Structures are given as structure tokens and as C-alpha cells.
């Protein structure tokens, strides 16, 4: 126990400042009022859905939970059920084998809801494109508010996308 406590104390707090929102990532105009956004901004619940990614984007979504980015420190947390979520964070081109699961997950999220597509594949279909097995970008299957490019996007870019979705356009 001594060693564990010593490690915590010597590590200290490594969390860095959160990135600012970037309105250029928006796919549609902000749909929600100031009142709703104020609540989202203080306690946002996210459900992640891998709709067919290579697992690269997942690595960076895990990373935003690490102590450097500490997304929970902003009141944003990942939840186990879409029924508890305000936002879907969707990765990958949408594999046709995942289309129904993605649509049902989207339907299960209560209104008002937001969707952020993560990664080049989520934005455009990426290197996998559209085919007999892939529906391509996430917006081909469900409505997308914000899309974050990158292969995979860096953790700060993913946080920026999430924060952009819950901010007022200025």
C-alpha cells in the first residue's frame, strides 16, 4: 500500500488543458437551445459504437480517458447503455453487418441526442469505402452533427469534436 500511495504522490496531476471547440467540424447547424446545451455541457453521457472500424480509433477514444486528457474531469463520461446516453460516438465505415445494430442503438438514445462521427472512415468511408460489405460514412446511415477526421484522430481532436457538438455556434 505504501508503494501504491508513493506512486500516486510522485506522479502528481498530469492533466492538460482541454482543447477549444472547432466549428469547422460541424456537419449541420447547432440544433439545440442554450438551455439544453448548458445541461449537456456539465454532464454529458456518451455511448460509443464501433460500426466497423479497424480498432485504431478505439485506441484514441480509450486515450481520452487517460490522465493527460482526463475527459471525465470535464463532466463527460462513457456509459454502458444507449438509453443512458446523450451522444453517440461512432467509429468506422458502417459495416453492412452492423447497420441494423447502429440504427437500433441510435433509436434507443433518448431525444435530444447528438452524433459525433470519429475518424476518416466515419467521415468518408476512408480506405474501406463503400462496397458490398460497407455502407461507407456514418452519415449514410444515421444523422451526424460533428465529424472528426484523422486516421486515427488524436485524442485532443476527438475531445474537440465532442466539445464542438455541445457548444453554441458563435
Amino acid at each position, binding site marked *: 500500500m505504501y508503494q501504491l500511495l508513493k506512486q500516486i504522490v510522485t506522479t502528481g496531476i*498530469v492533466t492538460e488543458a482541454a482543447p477549444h471547440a472547432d466549428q469547422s467540424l460541424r456537419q449541420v447547424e447547432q440544433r439545440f437551445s442554450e438551455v439544453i446545451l448548458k445541461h449537456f455541457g456539465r454532464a454529458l453521457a456518451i455511448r460509443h459504437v464501433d460500426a466497423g472500424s479497424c480498432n485504431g480509433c478505439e*485506441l484514441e477514444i480509450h486515450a481520452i480517458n487517460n490522465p493527460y486528457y482526463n475527459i471525465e474531469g470535464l463532466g463527460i463520461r462513457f456509459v454502458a447503455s444507449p438509453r443512458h446516453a446523450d451522444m453517440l460516438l461512432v467509429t468506422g465505415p458502417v459495416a453492412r453487418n452492423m447497420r441494423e445494430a447502429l440504427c437500433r442503438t441510435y433509436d434507443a438514445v433518448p431525444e435530444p441526442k447528438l452524433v459525433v462521427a470519429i475518424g476518416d472512415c466515419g467521415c468518408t468511408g476512408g480506405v*474501406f469505402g463503400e462496397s458490398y460489405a460497407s455502407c461507407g460514412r456514418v452519415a449514410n446511415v444515421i444523422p451526424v452533427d460533428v465529424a472528426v477526421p484523422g486516421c486515427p484522430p488524436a485524442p485532443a481532436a476527438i475531445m474537440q469534436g465532442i466539445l464542438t457538438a455541445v457548444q453554441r455556434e458563435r
Partner: protein
Amino acid sequence: MNKAIEDLIVRGAPLAGAMPAFRVSITAGELRDVCEKARSQKARLVALWGSDETTRTAGYALHIALALPHGLLWLTVALPRAHPQYPGIADLYPAANRMQRAAYDLVGIEPQGDADRRKWLRHGSWPAGVFPLRKDFDGADGFPPSDDRYAFVKVQGEGVHEIPVGPVHAGIIEPGHFRFSIVGEKILRLEERLGYTHKGIEKRFESMTLEEGAKLAGRVSGDSTVAYAWAYAMAVEAATRTEPPPRALALRGILLELERIANHLGDLGYLGNDVALSFGFFQFWRLKEDLLRTHRELFGHRYMMDVIVPGGVTRDLPQGASERLLSRLEQIEGESATLKSIYDEHAGAQDRFIMTGQVLPELAARMGLNGFAGRASGIRHDLRVDYPVPPWQQVEPRIASHTRGDVAARVSVRFDELAESLRLVRALALQLPPGAICAPVAGCDGGRSGIGWVEGWRGEVLVALETHDGNRIHRMHPHDPSWQNWPLVERAVLGNIVPDFPLINKSFNLSYSGQDL
């Protein structure tokens, strides 16, 4: 070595390339006999896949890759166009079950005998009787969703109930379906259904040049991008008779070991998290982030994607950069040793780790468990050790091993491999050969083949490549070690309680995308 297998190798042709490999054509009639003999000689099944040869010869082909002490044996069985059938081998090599089903779904070649004929990758995205990897199939075709019924094995009896989980899981994880049959808290049976992330990777390769394929190969399974990029480059270099410079090989070795370190750090953190030791998650993920930032600084990408290309590598490691890397690794080494002693002495964590999710060596050998999970169950195989081709021969990797096969054994092997990889990176960086980092890749006709075979952090990654005229790809099969290991997760959980499933699953951390393709 059995005489019959020796004769086969003599009959076949040695393949050019970095890894020792032989290619032999056999008839469907010989297949079971060859596999039985191979099995009795403890040859391991590496992969099984199909191909459409109607544009080159008369029909289709079944391909089987076996690991022998000499190297890789690539068996090809020509199958007739009218009835492409072959005797199934899943009774000899249980891991072949899902591979045979995938080969049917994609190419339409069918195992005979009492084979499991349920679909595997198809689900409802394309209709029965349509085979996407046939040459007359246009990859751009889409179909309306069709019937997706699947016959799970039903467990009956008093007090048995089912828990269906997925494809969308509770954590940040890839999609797949798990059907648990439960009595009380204990798992009586688990059946996996995968294939949800099937996105047509193999068909896509066939529309690409050898050069274009490198980017896609690095995205078959994102956490193993280095292993796949190297295996792909190795296969292209074999097919085109390209010799990558020695400096490039040493740099590839460094990249592969850094990928192993990063993945083990991340998983060791999650294994702490899964036993309510969230301290472990935050500490290990801090170290992983430090390493990823160093990757970004030195190689231009946090996961080192697209650094390995056919012919060599795109980024060098100059003296100053090498020193920065080594000092980062020294910090990680010191801190992970401290964290190991904290894990080792944490009674709560050890209580959850020990005797949880056990795979005994006999079962692991029979089912073909590979990679670090295999080494935690007494399977002493590691491609870097078994076939020490450059750059491994000059640094002599030491194999990590354990025999208990439980979560604690997999944690122990991961810690050992983490320490060994740190040593290997240092050894490779300190004796980097001088010279170029990339050789030009020669043009290539159709009909050439090449093998890439790399010990990735999870296990053996195989790339089997056949070329088409004009530097194009005729068939490219990337094979993930998860094909072999997923069925062992079904076995490891038996008798365990449901809440230990995430812990057991994470201790293997298998790829969905890599096997769904």
C-alpha cells in the same frame, strides 16, 4: 520430421522471401492424409482460405498454411469449377471450423463430411449463393438486408438461462455477439458470433496495386498496424524479389517491439481496471501516452501507421532521436517494474487473476492457441525465436512462458514480454546497421506469390499474397491470430462467473476486425 512431410517439401518449391516457406500443390484426395500426418508431427495450422482461379485455371482453390520446424508449408488444393468441394479438416484442426465457413461465405468452396455449415461472415448483407470473392462478383454491388437467422446451440435443463450480449457492448470495444448459457452465476456455455465488422477488406485488395495495398494492410487491425504492414511488405518483397536494406529490417524490429510495448502497457492498465484497481489504469495509460507521444515525435504517427512500406521504412532513426527513444524507454522500464511489484503484492488483484479463465496446455495445443496467450498456456512458440531471420538473429529474443494458462499467467507473460521488448529495442537501436532505409521495389508480373509472417504483439500475423499482371493483387489473405484464439475464450470462461468475463476477455484482448475482414 515425418518422411511423408519431407517428401512433400521436396515435391514443392521453396518460396523466395525473408521467412522459410514452401509451396506444394496437392489433390483433394491427399488433403486429409497430409493433414493427419502433419497433425501427428505437431505441425500447427496457421491459416485456411479460398481463392477463385477461374481467370487463371479451371476452377477454385483451397489454401492451407501449416507451421513446421522447417518453416511455413503452403498447401494449395485445386478444386473443380462445377462442384468446388474438399474433405473438411476441422476434426483434425478444430481452429479450421470458422475458417472453412468463412471460405464458403466468401468463395463458395465447401467442406464435405460432418462439417459445421452455418454461415460465419455473411450475416444478412449478401444473399446465400452469392460469393463476394469470386472474380465475376462486382465489389461495389450492394444488396438489401436479407434474413439473418443463426442457429445458436441451445442449452436446456432446469435453471439454465441465456444472456445475449452484443454486438454493441458496454465498453469502448469492437462489436461481436456473445451468447452465455448460465446456471446461477456460473457460465455453462459461451457461444461467440463474430463477423459484424466484415467490411470487404480482401475484395478491396483485389482492386489495388501492390503499392496501394500497404495502406490497407496497415488497417486490417489497427492495434497491430506495424505487424500487418511488415507482413504485407515481406510478402510483396518476396513476390517482387526485393531485398530490404539491413537498416530497414532493424528499424522494423524496433517498430514491432514498440507496438508490443504500447499494447501490453494499455492492456495491463485495463486488467487493473477490471479488478477495481483503477490506479493501474491511470498509471499504465500515462506510460502508454508518454510512449505514443514519443512515437509521434520520432516516427510521425502515434501508432506508427504507414512507416513500414514494401522495400523498407519511410522514417529513419538518427542518433539524437535514438537517444530520446532510449531515455523514454528507460523511464517506462523503471516505472513498469514498480507497477509490477504493486500488482504482484495486491491481494485483491491477485485473487481475481489467479485461476480465472484457465486454458490448460493440452487444450491449448489441441485447439492451436497462439501468441502470448499460447505462451501463457505452455505453447512455446514465437516466430522471432523459432525462425530467427534478420533482425532477430543478432539480438536473440528470449521466449516468455508460463503453464498455468489463467489470467495471472497471461498478465505474467505480458510483463515478461514488456521487459524483453524493452531490451530488444535497446539492442537493435544500439547496433543499427548503416545505409539506406528503403530499396526500390521491382515491377512484378502475375502468378507470383509471397508470404509474410510476423510475430505481432497478439500472435502470428500471416499475409499470403498472389500477384496479378501489372503490379496488381490477384488474392491477398491477411490472417489474424485471433482466428485461432477466439474459440479458446469460449473454453476459458467455462465455470467462471459472468462478472469475470470482461477480465478474461481483456486478458486475451483479441481482434474482431482482424478476423471479420
